């Protein structure tokens, strides 16, 4: 899948409406009882609503005309009681259905979120965060009205229509046909317009998603934007995206808004036809004037629910693309998951082997080519090499963040594909290149490494990596709130907190991916001593550029062009006078660049 940027529209499968509706209906199933209650309560309210005009008519025609004030009072009393009952019904209906709808949204959102957690890096690599967010929040919310109205308007209105049609048919078959003649026309026009509208609403959702992605990126990178004085530019991009989104909205509206006129026209024409045909029937005395008058009132009773159903359909079309986007994610199979027969890996000793591992992100260019090595338990391995050579890829495969294309990765002789992900990753401590802290207290951030750690354990971990000292300088110490952008913390301090977090998780294998890059040499030394003490005898992989960091490793592997060029201890490699020797000596060469210039 190509990388998706904030500018690009996402691909969406053209899927059949029906299958999506079916999937939506499934969510109603666990709430059958509540839906039943809602329908019952709904019919009570509708009944009272239908009775009100009838009462009004009877009151005037029968009692008032006859001057029967006693019965009139009784009628008024009955009306008040019925309406009060309807009020109570209406209240519990709103609550029942409101709960059902919100519960369904909760379920869908949670399901979506849970599913996203299972997806592998490849999924996240290809989409801006803002776009994923748009689905979890916005698209799920767009389903709200769909469920409420699906139950409270669609079903009762369908019942009303059927009743009216039966009555009309019974009254006069021919006239009924005339009255309904515009219905198929309306449906045809409707579907034509709405299928066009549906595509436009899809575009609108995509554009909204793009806008979301850009907003997210812009606010995340606001420092860069401001420091380059690029506000005008980003503002322009924002306006372009915004205008694009608005245009897609109005273009969808141009179609969608036709919906009322179509229904009204059909209604109007239907009524005119009934009068026209009815009058000729009356003139030939085929029906009585009374029947015709009654019939016309039924015609409007027929169109009212049609109007409501069409309105619901309009909503369905408007929000269907939200559902499509949700299901599209739910349908993505996680490509890294536990095998059915996967077992938890027992406590890791720390032997790591790569057997002829080939890896490619896109199945075109190989990032790793036939890489093999064996690392014994307790070894510290340093990976060196130019940027983009494949160092990070190697350590990512140890945690099984990606699936190897060919070959196998073994830990203690277990093929990683045969063990459960949780048991594997739970024992590997990874410090990634980008330090990420949650916006919560320092304490909670460290505790993320071991969720049930006591405050004391947190402190010990922080002390081990020399973070304790600066943390205590804050007024609130470990309870200092860290914001997303790490307010008041320097990059080095954030790395130290992340370090404490990793320490606390007590990993059997430690992976440091340029984890000390932002830490000064003095602190780094302290950190290394802390690690050595805490993780004595554990296997560790270190990616670093500072040779002072690398030199002490047991094995140094030089990674170039997706392969391991040479490996061995510092002394061995220096003697070998190969690539590492060049790297190492260049450090001094660059230090004395007068000499370099002379050469």
């Amino acid at each position, binding site marked *: 899948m190509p*990388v998706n940027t904030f500018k690009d529209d996402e691909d969406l499968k053209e899927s059949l409406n029906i299958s999506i509706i079916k999937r939506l209906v499934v969510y109603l199933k666990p709430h059958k009882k509540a839906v039943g209650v809602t329908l019952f309560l709904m019919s009570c309210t509708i009944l009272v609503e239908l009775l009100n005009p009838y009462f009004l008519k009877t*009151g*005037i025609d029968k009692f*008032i005309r006859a001057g029967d*004030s006693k019965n*009139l009072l009784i009628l008024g009393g009955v009306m008040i009681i019925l309406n009060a009952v309807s*009020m109570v019904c*209406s*209240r519990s209906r709103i609550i029942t259905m409101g*709960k059902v709808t919100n519960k369904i*949204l909760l379920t869908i959102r*949670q399901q979506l*979120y*849970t599913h996203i957690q299972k997806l592998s890096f490849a999924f*996240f690599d290809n989409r*801006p*965060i803002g776009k994923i967010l748009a689905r979890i929040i916005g698209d799920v919310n767009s389903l709200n009205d769909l469920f409420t109205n699906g139950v409270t308007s669609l079903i009762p209105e369908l019942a009303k229509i059927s009743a009216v049609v039966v009555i009309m048919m019974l009254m006069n078959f021919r006239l009924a046909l005339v009255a309904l003649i515009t219905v198929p026309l309306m449906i045809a026009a409707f579907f034509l317009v709405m299928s066009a509208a549906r595509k436009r609403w899809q575009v609108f959702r995509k554009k909204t998603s793009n806008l*979301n992605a850009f*907003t997210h990126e812009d606010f995340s*990178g606001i420092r860069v934007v401001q420091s380059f*004085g690029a*506000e005008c530019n980003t*503002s322009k991009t924002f306006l372009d995206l*915004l205008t694009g989104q*608005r245009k897609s909205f*109005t273009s969808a*509206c*141009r179609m969608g*808004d036709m919906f*009322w*006129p179509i229904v*009204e026209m059909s209604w109007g024409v239907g*009524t005119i036809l009934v009068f026209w045909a009815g009058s000729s029937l*009356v003139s030939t005395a085929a029906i009585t004037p009374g029947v015709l008058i009654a019939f016309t009132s039924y015609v409007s009773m027929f169109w009212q629910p049609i109007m409501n159903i069409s309105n619901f359909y309009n909503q369905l079309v408007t929000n269907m693309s939200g559902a499509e986007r949700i299901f599209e994610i739910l349908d993505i199979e996680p490509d890294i998951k536990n095998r059915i027969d996967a077992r938890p890996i027992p406590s890791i000793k720390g032997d790591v082997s790569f057997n002829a591992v080939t890896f490619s992100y896109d199945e075109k260019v190989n990032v790793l080519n036939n890489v093999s090595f064996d690392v014994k338990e307790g070894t510290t391995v340093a990976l*060196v090499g130019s*940027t*983009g050579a494949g160092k*990070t890829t190697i350590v990512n495969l140890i945690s099984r963040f990606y699936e190897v294309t060919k070959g196998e990765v073994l830990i203690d002789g277990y093929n990683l594909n045969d063990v459960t992900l949780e048991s594997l990753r*739970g024992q590997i401590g*990874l410090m*990634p290149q980008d330090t990420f802290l949650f916006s919560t207290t320092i304490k909670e951030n460290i505790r993320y490494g071991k969720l049930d750690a006591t405050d004391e354990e947190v402190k010990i971990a922080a002390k081990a990596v020399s973070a304790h000292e600066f943390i205590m300088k804050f007024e609130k110490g470990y309870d200092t709130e860290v914001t997303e*952008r790490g307010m*008041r913390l*320097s990059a080095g*301090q954030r*790395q*130290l907190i992340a370090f404490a977090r990793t320490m606390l*998780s007590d990993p059997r294998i430690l992976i440091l991916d340029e984890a000390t*890059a*932002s830490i*000064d*040499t*003095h602190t780094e030394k302290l950190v290394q001593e802390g690690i050595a003490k805490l993780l004595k005898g554990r296997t560790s992989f270190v990616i670093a*550029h500072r040779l002072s960091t690398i*030199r002490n490793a047991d094995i140094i592997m030089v990674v170039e062009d997706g392969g391991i060029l040479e490996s061995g201890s510092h002394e061995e490699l220096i003697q070998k006078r190969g690539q590492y020797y060049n*790297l190492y000596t260049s*450090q*001094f060469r*660059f*230090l004395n660049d007068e000499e370099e210039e002379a050469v």
Partner: protein
Amino acid sequence: MNTLLKLMKKRAWGYVLATAAMIAAITLDMFNPYLVGNIVDKVILDGDFSYLKGALLCLGGITIGRAILGYLKEYGFDLTSSKIIVDLRKDLFDHIQKLSFSFFDKNNTGELMSRIKDDTDNIMHALCFGIMLLLEQSIYFIIASVILFTLNWKLALISLVTMPVIEFVVFRLEKKIGSTYEKISDQRAVLNTTAQQNLTGVRLVKAFGREKYEIQKFLEQNQENYRINVDQVKIMANHNPVIEFLSNVVLVLVISFGGYFVIGGELSLGELVAFSNYIFMLIWPMRMMGWLTNVLAQCLASVKKIDKIFTEESEITNPSNPVKPEVLSGHVEFRNVDFKIGDACILKDVSINAQKGSTIAVMGITGAGKSSLINLIGRYYDCTSGEVCIDGVNVKNMRLDVLRKNVAVVMQDVFLFSDTIEENIKFGLDMKSTDPAFICAAKDSMVDEFVCQMKDGYNTVIGERGIGLSGGQKQRISIARALVRDAKVLILDDSTSALDMETEYHIQKALNKRRDITRFIIAHRISAVKNADEIVYFDNGSIAERGTHEELLALGGKYYKTYCAQYSGYDHEFDKEVSNAC
């Protein structure tokens, strides 16, 4: 609120036209019952068929007219309100962008996104459907009242007797639901933030295998969201049916009092029938009030949230009388600078004089105040006392855009957009990847070296935050982005840390060639700072050691210790060997 009203005023014509279409449609609507009544009376009951054709044609005309006008009305409201929202979002976005770093230190991206997306969506809903419905129902209500009062003012007055009660209920509803909507809006921001952080930190989550914990965390927020939304439903359920009931009571009032009047001879039966035909036109607007209040309350809650952001003012503002120079030469001076955040003293009495074209290297332990120092040059923060000057002018007296155009920073956290490499380097500049300045910057930052191996070259699309590139490649692009700007002051904030030694060396050499640029370099590696004109070693917010590489080595202090730590094992024999080998 004022901002919104101003924006609405700008688009007032759109509303006027849409409302005109609405009034025309309603007027046409009024003829409908009249025509139908005539057809029933004259044609069906009296058998006067000559009237039929004309009446049906009229009816057809009305239907078509109504359809067209109805379409114009809907589309007009959609178009107008969507334009207003574009303006509002744009203003909000621009305003947020102008706020200073300290604002972003305190506010999470997820929350800001929620304001700019969800809250404006709520307002849009009110501007479109809310206003349309309000106008429509008001017009119907007024027309119905006029007709009813002409028919019989006493009965009309009695019909309106429940109105104050309804208003009272609506008032209560508005009060209760308003605060609930504010909670919903806040909770949505929380939900957004939780999800956004999870997605941003997905690598961490997976590395620790904390998916279950994250799911649980989200579930709690999600359930809270459910609870507040159910609260909103309950408030609606407690008020809306009451309003409906009260509006239906009007019917009872009409037949009981109407009946009383008819029996008492004050009103004819025909008049009462006519009255009852129009009463529903009065009841519908009443019933809609609950729904309308709901939409408007939601809108107001969102307006409040947005207003709060609009009232935030940037701590860093343009001076009222900026000093003119457009082009700076790049002489940077810190004069007795203090910098505090809250009570914490970050920098104490710092003075540095960086001549045009010189290189100042900044070292020091983690958290010593190095980044804070260089953040003061481009005025990302303002110093508490003392002054930072460029070419002798206090940066606070310069126009912000001029200042920042002349100061290029490569930040510690590399941030790249999900766009092509070319766009990321240009970042707003109007140039092509074939321009000499672009090529020069790309070569000097060693970007060209790896980009030319890519199939799509500079058109290669990278993921958000530069996903798909290695740490070093990202740093190189961010260096290129700063170099291409041709600024007089260049700041590298620990921005070569992920580069291998050789790449770093080449970049440094290229930078040294740009002699007219003043450089500030924060680094931890001796190799990166060694050639600076002055190395400043920070400790705890003040300068502990300063001088050239040689001077500091001779001093035998902290810098010397760092040097030893990085180059220990570099004994003299080996030194010779290496020197010879070179």
